[in-house]
């Protein structure tokens, strides 16, 4: 028996021997059954804790700090109930949500959409059936939300493509990011549904029910298409139904965009941010945060503050590049950045103009052309504007997923 199992057994024994009064009452409350929740009997609690593991099992991108947190906390959490049951779309696998009591502080339930959730993503779930129902309202939405019913948008800089990676499900080794490696990563990852889609689709193109495999391959290939826009891939998160989009700007900056419904448990994210030094918006659902584990999530507010203080032109350009990527799709945010495209240094201005070109902000280039004092730069800019802007972001996702499907085609033949 390992350390986690020993600690888990002790925790379960303590809780079974002397359960808090609220738990005794709650287990007898028929309203909890209407939520699809089944309470474990004492034997089942003991069995479940025997499986306790100190290691992450969510296929997420963990750091030393998150692993340590799991090791220190998971054994103390006693699973007391399961459900509702749900099916992971695209995989067909069934899972149960899990309800815990922290044996060190048995004041209330904790909810996790899956037993693989790390403790720092568990949601306090109160001591009554109504409070349990309230927590469940943020998960397993029916019907699944769409772009117009996901009212909140959060965008964050994930990092530079060349410095980021995701673990291979085959070797566990971190490998560079492209369409194939990201798809493989999020296929195994607990927090997202299996299939992604490209920027040609504004909404989830996949059906509720899977049809014949050959149809799904066709749909999957179609869904990979990119619009004439910043290349991106989007996944639906597995438990809140949010959209997580990863955009590749200029072939080097990765930006994450989340469309979601605000959570009702900001204190969970506040605590997580304080523990790990992250800065996720505190109303993000926990499955979104799980899917973003291991990535940075710098918001435009942070970049704007840096830009306001920075005086070195080189560093300012780096910040402006990221901020411009984060402002993509938000004219109000972009308008706030507009003063940073003016500068005394002509090299700075020239580079800043390149940022504008790659997003087709023609009206700002016209403004700059009107005031540009350097003759050569002015002539260049007018030539570009006369000819028409035609600059695109490289599609770093191209190839990977297609290669996968081509393989399957060959197998079919």
């Amino acid at each position, binding site marked *: 028996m390992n350390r986690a199992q020993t600690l888990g057994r002790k925790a379960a024994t303590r809780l079974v021997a002397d359960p808090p009064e609220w738990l005794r009452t709650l287990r007898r409350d028929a309203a909890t059954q209407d939520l699809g929740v089944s309470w474990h009997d004492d034997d089942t609690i003991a069995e479940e804790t025997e499986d306790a593991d100190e290691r992450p099992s969510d296929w997420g991108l963990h750091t030393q700090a998150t692993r340590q947190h799991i090791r220190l906390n998971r054994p103390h959490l006693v699973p007391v109930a399961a459900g509702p049951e749900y099916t992971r779309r695209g995989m067909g696998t069934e899972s149960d949500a899990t309800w815990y009591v922290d044996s060190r502080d048995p004041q209330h339930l904790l909810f996790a959409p899956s037993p693989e959730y790390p403790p720092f993503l568990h949601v306090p779930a109160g001591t009554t059936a109504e409070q349990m129902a309230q927590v469940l309202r943020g998960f397993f939405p029916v019907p699944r939300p769409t772009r117009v019913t996901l009212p909140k948008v959060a965008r964050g800089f994930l990092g530079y493509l060349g410095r980021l990676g995701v673990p291979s499900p085959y070797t566990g080794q971190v490998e560079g990011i492209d369409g194939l490696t990201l798809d493989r990563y999020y296929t195994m990852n607990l927090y997202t549904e299996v299939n992604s889609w490209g920027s040609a689709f504004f909404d989830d193109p996949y059906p509720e029910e899977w049809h014949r495999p050959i149809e799904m391959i066709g749909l999957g290939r179609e869904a990979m298409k990119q619009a004439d826009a910043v290349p991106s891939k989007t996944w639906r998160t597995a438990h809140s139904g949010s959209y997580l989009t990863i955009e590749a700007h200029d072939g080097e900056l990765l930006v994450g965009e989340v469309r979601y419904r605000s959570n009702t448990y900001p204190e969970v994210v506040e605590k997580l941010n304080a523990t790990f030094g992250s800065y996720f918006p505190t109303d993000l659902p926990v499955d979104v945060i799980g899917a973003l584990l291991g990535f940075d999530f710098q918001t435009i507010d942070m970049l704007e503050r840096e830009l306001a203080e920075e005086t070195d032109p080189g560093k300012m350009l780096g910040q402006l590049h990221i901020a411009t990527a984060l402002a993509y799709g938000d004219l*109000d945010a*972009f308008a706030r950045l507009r003063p940073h495209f003016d500068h005394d240094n002509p090299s700075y201005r020239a580079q800043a103009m390149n940022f504008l070109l790659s997003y087709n902000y023609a009206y700002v280039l016209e403004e700059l052309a009107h005031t540009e004092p350097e003759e050569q730069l002015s002539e260049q800019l007018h030539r570009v504007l006369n000819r028409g802007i035609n600059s695109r972001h490289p599609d770093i996702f191209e190839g990977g997923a297609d290669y996968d499907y081509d393989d399957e085609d060959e197998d079919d033949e």
Partner: protein
Amino acid sequence: MTTSELSDSHCYVLRPGTPASAVSDLAVGQGWELVADQPRGYDRVAIRRWRVTGGTETGAGVDEMELIDDHIAGYRAVTAPDLIRDRIAGSLPLWSADDLFTQAQSAADPLVRMRALRALQYFQIVAAMQAAPQAPLDPDDPDLRLIADDERYLAAFRRGLEDPVPGVRRAALDGLCRTFYPGAQAILREYRDRLPDHTETIDWYLEKGTHRIRAKADGEAG
């Protein structure tokens, strides 16, 4: 034949500095449902549409309000159905087509003239689409509508071609190249040799001919 001067009266530009949230907050406050949210692309502008309800006691209709975020031209436009036009005009800081014609003609700041012409590019398309269902069929091609010139737009763009500032001329030229009004072709021919930086563009549009609107799906550009 004259296009109705009211054909663009349901279309507005939000004054600079007015955030998108001014429109979305209004929609939320009125209980209008967001029904479409198309993100921007490289050349594609972002569009949001709300299903507008009003006058329910009298059984009055349901229609859509549209918000366009044009990252290329740098304006934000709202189109509002009759049902809510007064409410929109009373709630948001707006410019109408007439305001934009005035700016294009007489604003001292060339950037204001340029922006006005860029916005009028969009207004003329909306106006032509609005006029299309009443426009006669082209006898040479009954699938297409004959859209009558709206002289207000053609005059504004022609004047823009004479502007001393290149950006204003570019805005005017774009307006003439992308219009549904057949009279633009004569203006393009007239100015071809006077705009040497744009000869290639003008030749391309002259060869291609005026954009057309299909009769079968009025509102769909041909």
